[in-house]
């Protein structure tokens, strides 16, 4: 419980840090989505129910801060509905968090490669889903090299932050006595033997 409280507090802190992360012009205006990376890292370290709670909390704060009610042209004719409804990020975090729970056993064995890669993939999938929904509302799909660069680099930068966040979470877990890894299995599956 202490560990869960601490990572929740860390996620709040990450929202404030996110404000200081600039958009990188030289990288096709991509940015590091630190909140996404932190959530996916947290999702891989906690059980499913707690992941859902974190998905709701993180998604809600993200929407409260970043959601823009931009209406598609058709929206004006009937009852106006924003292209991305408020709460869509909560849904995405819940969905992608469930996917990332799939690599939790690997993480618990002490292997970080696949979870880190999956954090990048989940960030990418989340951004692409948002783009698809926007495109659906606007009635046509446009794919350009520039767009792909932006999506890929955003995912890559978020993925690069993942090992550092996972390291921090491991330290927090050790400090609070929360068992992330299954020590018994570690020896059996570790590439380096009993180095864990």
């Amino acid at each position: 419980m202490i560990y869960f409280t601490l990572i929740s507090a860390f996620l709040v802190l990450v929202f404030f840090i996110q404000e200081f992360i600039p958009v990188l012009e030289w990288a096709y205006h991509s940015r590091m989505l630190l909140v996404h990376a932190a959530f996916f890292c947290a999702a891989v370290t906690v059980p499913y129910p707690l992941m859902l709670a974190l998905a709701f909390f993180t998604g809600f704060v993200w929407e409260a801060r970043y959601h823009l009610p931009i209406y598609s042209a058709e929206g004006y004719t009937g009852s106006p509905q924003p292209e991305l409804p408020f709460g869509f990020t909560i849904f995405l975090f819940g969905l992608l968090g469930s996917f990332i729970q799939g690599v939790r056993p690997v993480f618990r064995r002490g292997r970080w490669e696949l979870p880190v890669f999956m954090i990048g993939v989940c960030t990418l999938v989340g951004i692409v889903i948002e783009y698809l929904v926007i495109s659906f509302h606007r009635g046509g799909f446009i794919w350009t090299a520039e767009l792909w660069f932006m999506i890929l680099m955003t995912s890559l930068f978020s993925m690069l932050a993942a090992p550092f966040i996972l390291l921090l979470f491991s330290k927090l877990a050790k400090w609070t006595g929360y068992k992330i890894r299954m020590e018994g299995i570690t020896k059996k599956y570790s590439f380096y033997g009993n180095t864990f």
Partner: protein
Amino acid sequence: MSRINIAFLVAFVGALVWIFLLSPNSLDRIQRGALSTFRPTIEASTELEEAIENFGDQKYTKTDLRKMLTDAELQRDKLQLEVLKLDELLEENNALRSALNYVKNAPLKLVPAQVIARKPSTWYNTLIIDKGALDKIETDSPVIVPVGDYAGLVGKVSEVRNDNTAVIILLTDEMCQVSARIEGTADQGIIAGQRGSLKIQPNLSLPLEFAPELKDAFQAQPDLLLKYLPKIAASTKDRNIISSGAGDLFPENLLLGKVIDFKLGAIDAEAIVKPAVDFSKLKNVFVVLPEKSKEELEKEGKQESSSDSEVPQVSNSSVETTQVSSRE
């Protein structure tokens, strides 16, 4: 799946449905609260960004600053005199217009604002400014900056978040569409950003001599596209694109960009336009206030409707009296 997992999943879905069903007023309150919480951080991050951008710039001495202040005051006095002269000209112009039964021109009511956050969204080209409902800023108010001798269009107010915060959607966004024409011609169209080029083109000089076929892939999409032009307009390259004023949302003659190329379609032409405003360096902008606020317009609308509703009553009564009189 264990029972506790299913219970949490059901609770999660229920909470999600509840969020989706929240009323716009509740969402507005939530977002206002969040923005108020994050506002100091947003401002601090902008200050930090500016400090990093200006790092190593020449520091001014007190004497330099005093001289700059004197120059600025002189400039202000000169501009004030010019504005007085322009007001006289406007009055004269309006007098002539009324003589010809034309619609009168009105000076733009501007509210200066400072940009406090750039591109806060992944998918929308937006800015956040430090002015809001307190300064009578309304949704869809145009936002401009001076560009040479012109007023350049930045975008429009997408949302007034609270008393001192508003979100601006930039001209480079697909959702900010402006009725425009080619300066010096009557060719009109609709200008907007392109979804494929959601962001401003990065200033890259990639050494791709070894693979020239990749150059197109690295070439960013043009920022603005002026659609629905007549084919005959294709001979007007390097012309300025200005707002046409059609639709009454944007005042006319705001500079939007310059034509750099044309694409001919089956029945019409499209102009590729380089924006006039450098969106990456915006610090101060001006919001154009409407001549009449929405409240005033609503009041006028109500008065008109009430006067309209009175007219048939009068006519009915007059009909009734005539009927009565005829019976008599």
